[in-house]
């Protein structure tokens, strides 16, 4: 068959099928819109970050460390500056600390945790700091001036010209800081910003030995430099650094690798949620194609009589499905573009603050490919029967299409499975996750279809009994040929499953965070405390009524070697970097104690059992990640002094106890004279956390008090906002389920019209007919709701108890609301889709008999 004829036939075939085409397109468009929205946001934000990369680093090059930047790096930077006259550098130090407003009449002023940033003149080299009033940022900050975040100003009730106390020194508030170029307002900051000059930071003396400070040296190279030149400069600094120094050298071209990595992970998860909607769309497509082909069997038989070959018939209808798939995908892309246009407003605070374009070609292409692919994969099963339509049907109507044989059926199932797996691989970027997803979807769909069959069997049995007439007709409607009960239950149920599972996991997480802390757990932590201050701090804690006070020393050190293998070599042996490398090169926190706290259990070896050698006890999982085991010799550099320790015990720690715990605990007597700080935890009565913080801020401004409740609330609020994004994407799945139910009803519209006409002719009122429909759709919704909710509970239970090791709580509200909501949606969508049948006067429908 010539292509031109084939395309004419495809075009003619679409005539008079606008209803079915609309349904086909709508089913697919919902899923494609979800896919395009997620991919478009992810690509758009990523592109936005890369586009603003220089501003987001505020420099061309940044050297970062959790301790003073090694002199080798500083010398390398100086060499760079010398080689390129006009180049500049600026140091920026950041730390968490408590700041306060001055007190009055001997009572300390209000205090708050803040993220303090001390920046040298020149910062930022790119981008700008926006302030209120605007002119506050025009000149460099003086040593006694500060800019504060608006939320801090309102919390401490201070404004422009007022005094802010940082580290016991007074600063004048010059204005409020609205935005910084190198901070993406993603709502993930746990404390508000305070910006002071480098000289100001020096005045606070907060960088006392042992305080946790993130240090960054920013470099702006003179002239117009491109990414390659900056990378060359970065390499020269990296080369100068000792191996595995823990110092990171970033160029603007790296563009926030950690943030982008996090966004990519989020996009992959949400991508799979979006794919569920698309797969539901696929189920709808399959149903639409089946219904459409059922009306075309006679025409196909005629075509066969006219000499169209079986393969040509399949090709013709496959091309039709592909074209409709394309149309559905394009409609979905247009809807996705609309979603991308409103997303920044709906998700403000969740998305990073970068310009976001609605034009995302890659996401559109992905939507097009997945939409068309899913449409074709799900059209496969009904299309495969087209080949078997016998031309004999033109003479003998009872000649039905044959069922595909065993091998053909297996092949079709395999193509469908492969299609879903391929789509999931694209969305998740992992073949393994995609396989689990595909199996999960098929198992859930099979369970739902099984429940649908049970419903139909039950309905068929009950409808024969003496029950009320409305109920009997409603039940009979569920089992009528082509009723679409199975499809409706499966698709709606899958949508409910996804939404319920997402809601339960989110609620489970937030509830765990917000749960009352165990009665003996500490609710405040004190860090950055000098050893000499501990006695006085204990007194203040006692005054505040604190109980369960524990304070332990903390010694900063760096890992040098394990069993004689230097860290640099260990890093080289591990590919992939990330956490496994960071565990080796990070600043390690060591403590020492005689007996372990009760939430620690020694699972291998014996604590302090070798009198001849200095011992260390390591948390079991941490030891595994480090690559150390019982008997390993580990060497630490304790601020310039090498210390060899032997691993004599491995422990497990119950981190959920909120106690002060360490991965690395050293035998007492070994580190007693090493430079050290103290960290403490206590439980203070409700309401005394803030006065305690205010008093500590006044008397020991270097001590940082962390309130567990406050941090938990911040994390819960962030989860809540992220949950909004997840719920929005999950909502597409319900929408797709509803579209399919409505489509299933629409496919039986003419039959329904005749039934309504007959019922009305026999004396049924319109209300009575609505009652029949109500029974049918309510039962469909009930089964989909119950099975979907059960599946959602099972999935959430698995994620919460197995993957996250949290406790499972039954949530009666969800358990009741989800099935009821499903019934309501099913009834509304079903009756709305039957509206034309209900409106028809009996004579109109009877004429068409």
């Amino acid at each position, binding site marked *: 068959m010539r292509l031109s004829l084939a395309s004419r036939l495809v075009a003619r075939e679409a005539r*008079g099928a606008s209803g079915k085409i609309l349904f086909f397109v709508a089913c697919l468009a919902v899923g494609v819109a979800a896919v395009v929205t997620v991919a478009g946001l992810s690509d758009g934000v990523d592109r936005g970050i890369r586009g603003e990369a220089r501003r987001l680093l505020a420099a061309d090059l940044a050297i970062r460390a959790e301790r003073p930047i090694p002199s080798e790096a500083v010398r390398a930077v100086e060499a760079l500056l010398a080689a390129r006259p006009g180049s500049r550098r600026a140091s920026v130090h950041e730390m968490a600390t408590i700041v306060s407003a001055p007190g009055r009449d001997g009572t300390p002023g209000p205090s708050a945790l803040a993220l303090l940033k001390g920046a040298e003149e020149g910062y930022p080299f790119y981008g700008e700091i926006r302030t209120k009033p605007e002119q506050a940022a025009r000149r460099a900050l003086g040593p006694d001036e500060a800019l504060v975040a608006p939320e801090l100003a309102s919390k401490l009730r201070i404004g422009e010209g007022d005094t802010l106390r940082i580290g016991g020194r007074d600063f004048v508030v010059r204005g409020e800081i609205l935005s910084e170029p190198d901070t993406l307002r993603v709502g993930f900051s746990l404390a508000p910003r305070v910006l002071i000059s480098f000289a100001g930071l020096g005045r606070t003396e907060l960088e006392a030995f042992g305080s946790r400070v993130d240090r960054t040296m920013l470099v702006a190279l003179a002239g117009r430099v491109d990414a390659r030149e900056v990378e060359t400069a970065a390499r020269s600094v990296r080369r100068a650094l000792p191996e595995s120094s823990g110092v990171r050298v970033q160029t603007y071209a790296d563009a926030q690798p950690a943030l982008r990595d996090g966004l990519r992970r989020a996009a992959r998860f949400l991508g799979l949620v979006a794919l569920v909607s698309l797969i539901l769309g696929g189920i709808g497509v399959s149903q639409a194609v089946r219904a459409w082909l059922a009306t075309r069997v006679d025409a196909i038989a*005629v075509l066969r009589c006219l*000499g*169209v*070959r079986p393969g040509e018939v399949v090709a013709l209808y496959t091309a039709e499905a592909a074209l409709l798939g394309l149309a559905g995908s394009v409609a979905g892309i247009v809807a996705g573009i609309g979603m991308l246009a409103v997303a920044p407003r709906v998700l403000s605070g969740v998305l990073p603050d970068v310009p976001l374009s609605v034009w995302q070609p890659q996401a559109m292409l992905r939507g097009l490919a997945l939409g068309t692919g899913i449409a074709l994969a799900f059209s496969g099963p009904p299309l495969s029967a087209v080949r078997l339509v016998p031309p004999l049907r033109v003479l003998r109507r009872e000649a039905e299409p044959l069922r595909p044989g065993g091998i053909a059926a297996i092949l079709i199932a395999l193509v469908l499975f492969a299609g879903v797996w391929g789509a999931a691989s694209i969305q998740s970027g992992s073949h393994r996750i995609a396989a689990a997803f595909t199996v999960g979807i098929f198992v859930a769909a099979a369970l739902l279809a099984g429940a649908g069959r049970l419903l139909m069997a039950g309905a068929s049995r009950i409808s024969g009994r003496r029950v009320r007439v409305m109920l009997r007709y409603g039940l009979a409607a569920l089992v009528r040929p082509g009723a679409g009960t199975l499809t409706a239950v499966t698709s709606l149920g899958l949508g409910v499953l996804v939404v319920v599972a997402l809601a339960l996991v989110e609620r489970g997480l937030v509830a765990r965070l917000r749960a009352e802390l165990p009665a003996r757990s500490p609710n405040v932590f004190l860090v950055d405390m000098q050893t000499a201050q501990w006695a006085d701090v204990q007194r203040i804690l006692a005054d505040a009524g604190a109980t369960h006070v524990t304070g332990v020393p903390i010694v900063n050190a760096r890992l040098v070697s394990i069993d004689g293998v230097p860290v640099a070599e260990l890093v080289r042996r591990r590919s992939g970097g990330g956490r496994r490398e960071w565990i080796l090169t990070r600043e390690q926190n060591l403590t020492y104690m005689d007996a372990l706290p009760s939430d620690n259990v020694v699972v291998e070896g014996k604590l302090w059992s070798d009198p001849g050698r200095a011992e260390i006890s390591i948390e079991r999982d941490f030891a595994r990640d480090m690559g150390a085991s019982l008997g390993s010799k580990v060497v630490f550099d304790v601020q310039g002094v090498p210390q060899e320790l032997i691993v004599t015990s491995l422990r497990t720690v119950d981190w959920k106890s909120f106690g002060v715990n360490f991965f690395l605990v050293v035998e007492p007597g070994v580190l007693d004279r090493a430079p050290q700080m103290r960290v403490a935890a206590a439980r203070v009565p409700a309401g005394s956390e803030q006065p305690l913080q205010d008093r500590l801020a006044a008397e020991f401004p270097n001590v940082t008090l962390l309130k567990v409740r406050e941090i938990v609330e911040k994390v819960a609020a962030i989860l809540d906002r992220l949950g909004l994004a997840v719920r929005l994407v999950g909502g597409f799945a319900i929408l797709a389920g509803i579209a399919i139910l409505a489509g299933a009803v629409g496919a039986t519209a003419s039959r329904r019209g005749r039934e309504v006409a007959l019922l009305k002719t026999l004396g049924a009122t319109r209300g009575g007919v609505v009652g029949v429909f109500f029974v049918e759709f309510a039962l469909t919704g009930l089964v989909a709701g119950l099975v979907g909710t059960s599946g959602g509970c099972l999935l959430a239970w698995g994620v919460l108890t197995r993957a996250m090791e949290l406790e499972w709580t039954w949530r009666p509200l969800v358990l009741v609301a989800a099935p009821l909501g499903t019934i309501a949606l099913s009834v509304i969508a079903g009756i709305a889709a039957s509206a034309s049948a209900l409106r028809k006067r009996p004579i109109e429908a009877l004429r068409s008999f």
Partner: protein
Amino acid sequence: MTVPRIQIRGLSKRLPSGNALLTVIDRIDLSIAPGEFVAVLGPSGSGKSTLLALMAGLDRPSEGEILLDGRPIQNLSEDDLALLRRRSIGFVFQSFQLLGNLTARENVLLPLELADIEGAAARADALLAAVGLSARGHHYPSQLSGGEQQRVALARAFAPEPAILLADEPTGNLDQATGRLVLDTLESLRRDSRATLVLVTHDPDVAGLADRRIHLRDGRIDREERRIAEPVA
């Protein structure tokens, strides 16, 4: 000797009926010459339509041979049978079987396009004119009367100039006057095209037009009648 257009040897067709096999066509031998008009008569269930389906390769025989122009067709693949129908066989059905989503003209055009015949549009228009429906070419089947639909079906059947035309009760769904008009049209088109026509009917008047009448009973040829001694070559 001229090769018969259709030759049937020992043809049987059995269909499952419950647990048993029902013999619908029972060892039939038949030879139809080129250009011959054969009417197949018989009561319901005598196997008329099945015989027609077997001749067209729409169904496969249980036993025996069917040769079209000397070439056996019972073992051809589905694709080859389709190509054979495309080039050599035209159909007219009792229920018209026009494609509802195509206009009258497109219905006539379709077999011409499938056979890739040059000047398809002109031939389709000429055929529509020949059946008296020039003005209705843009109408869809649902907008035409039964007689008009059947005339479109006739135009479609003759469009690719098939050597064989198979007609299954072409006037069965029409009133007498319309049926007559359709038969006249059929006869006129057949004469012009010199096609072999096999027409299934149980209307003796319709059968009276044929060169030969074959009466089937219980799947067998009960008797044959000829209008004239030799078929028109």
